[in-house]
């Protein structure tokens, strides 16, 4: 029995008592997916928060048998991806963000500027992550979602296909196309850097 199967069994038995464990087990994943899909930490936080709230409300209406048989990983992924999609659309239309509950003493969202005293290798790794996240953001959303699920979140092709609601072959093609585009961007970046160094 893997962690998710155990979680599903616990949720089926007592949703309120087990829901926090579901949040703890999946919050980094959902936040990562939302962050890589939306690019903005605040938006990602809201989308992943909203995803858990929707998950809870849905689970509250399901009977125990249905919950026990759920594939939680894929299901939560589908919810957060849908929210990222609608958020992207709404953002384009300049809608207001939902109200969030700020909890006192909570650290600020994602470390970025406050890294001045980090050792050079940490700073370099951070810069490298920023570059890759920038490249991901430039991918068309269809490819980005497939690449994020397969290579950032590490879902298998069948899991990613189920979460995206697309045939496995399509998802494979989208991942490959996405990687190819990222390679093109990487090569262009490298060329630019080389030109700057030799200029």
């Amino acid at each position, binding site marked *: 029995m893997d962690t998710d199967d155990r979680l599903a069994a616990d949720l089926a038995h007592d949703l*309120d008592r087990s*829901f*926090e464990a579901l*949040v*703890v087990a999946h*919050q*980094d994943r*959902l*936040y*990562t997916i939302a*962050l*890589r899909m939306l690019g903005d*930490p605040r938006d*990602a*936080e809201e989308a*992943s*928060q909203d995803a*858990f*709230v929707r998950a*809870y*409300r849905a689970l509250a209406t399901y009977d125990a048998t249905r919950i026990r048989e759920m594939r939680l990983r894929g299901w939560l992924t589908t919810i957060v991806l849908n929210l990222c999609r609608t958020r992207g659309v709404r953002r384009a239309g300049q809608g207001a963000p939902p*109200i*969030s*509950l*700020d*909890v*006192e*003493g*909570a*650290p*600020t*969202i*994602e470390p970025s500027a406050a890294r001045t005293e980090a050792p050079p290798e940490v700073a370099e*790794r951070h810069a*490298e*992550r920023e570059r*890759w*996240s920038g490249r*991901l953001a430039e991918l068309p959303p269809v490819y980005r979602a497939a*690449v*994020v699920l397969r*290579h*950032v*979140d*590490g879902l298998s092709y069948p899991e990613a296909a189920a979460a995206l609601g697309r045939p496995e072959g399509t998802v494979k093609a989208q991942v490959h196309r996405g*990687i*190819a585009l*990222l*390679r093109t961007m*990487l*090569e262009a*970046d*490298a*060329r630019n*850097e*080389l030109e700057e160094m030799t200029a």
Partner: protein
Amino acid sequence: MNRSTDHVLVAGPTGPIEAALADLTATAPARLRPAVLIQVGLADAYARIDSPIGPLTVAWNGRGVSVVDAAEDDATFETRHRTVTGREAFATDALPPRLADAIARRLGGDRRVRIDLDLRGHSPFERDVWRKALEIPRGEVRPYGWVAAEIGRPRAVRAVGTALGHNPVPLIVPCHRVVRTDGSIGQYSLGGPGNKRTILRSEGLDPEGLEAQAAAGIRYTGSDTTRIVCLPTCRHARRTTDAHRVSFRSAQAATEAGYRPCRVCRPDSGAARAA
């Protein structure tokens, strides 16, 4: 496809693109978990508000307000909150503006403003008592026996008192507007009878005057022009001029004198026990 081009090496990734992508995982902000739990009602947020009896702590979650308490500090509040709700409470700077506004308006006497309450874990009887207390307008009081009769449990006067003492959201559910059947002010969960008097006074009542009236045996007030009998604080009773005011010791005495009970304050509710 050739991964180890010069460009890739120049650009500096330590491995293939897939490895760089696998390094893009992030840690959720620490406030995500509490925010989710609060929104679904598995934990509460809390903050301070001002009130006629000084600062109070209000706890709420996505289902509604769950606790109002006069605790002096966070640790005391959190312990009491956990005892009442069984949930974790997280401190915040302030109430959400809409909730703060709704509470301020409700405390100011506006009964139209809706405040959701989270009263899970309390008995149906308790919730019936609290719902009834919510119907008592600002500036008026009703006896325990009245509440008991109104919820269809006329003999449960003592249990009504206990339920009011357990009211987790005092002020919002105005249990301070329920007084003893003999007319004395009675106990109050939010810091004792002194606070109860202060709050009633802030709502325009004269608690000492009421008690003096009750001690003199006046439990009901009628108007000799309308021949309607009310509880003394009913807004209709208070409109009656002194020249036309008639006092009664019991609802029965009023009935015998040919007075009919007010349809707003229903003074006959619980009158059998009060008499």
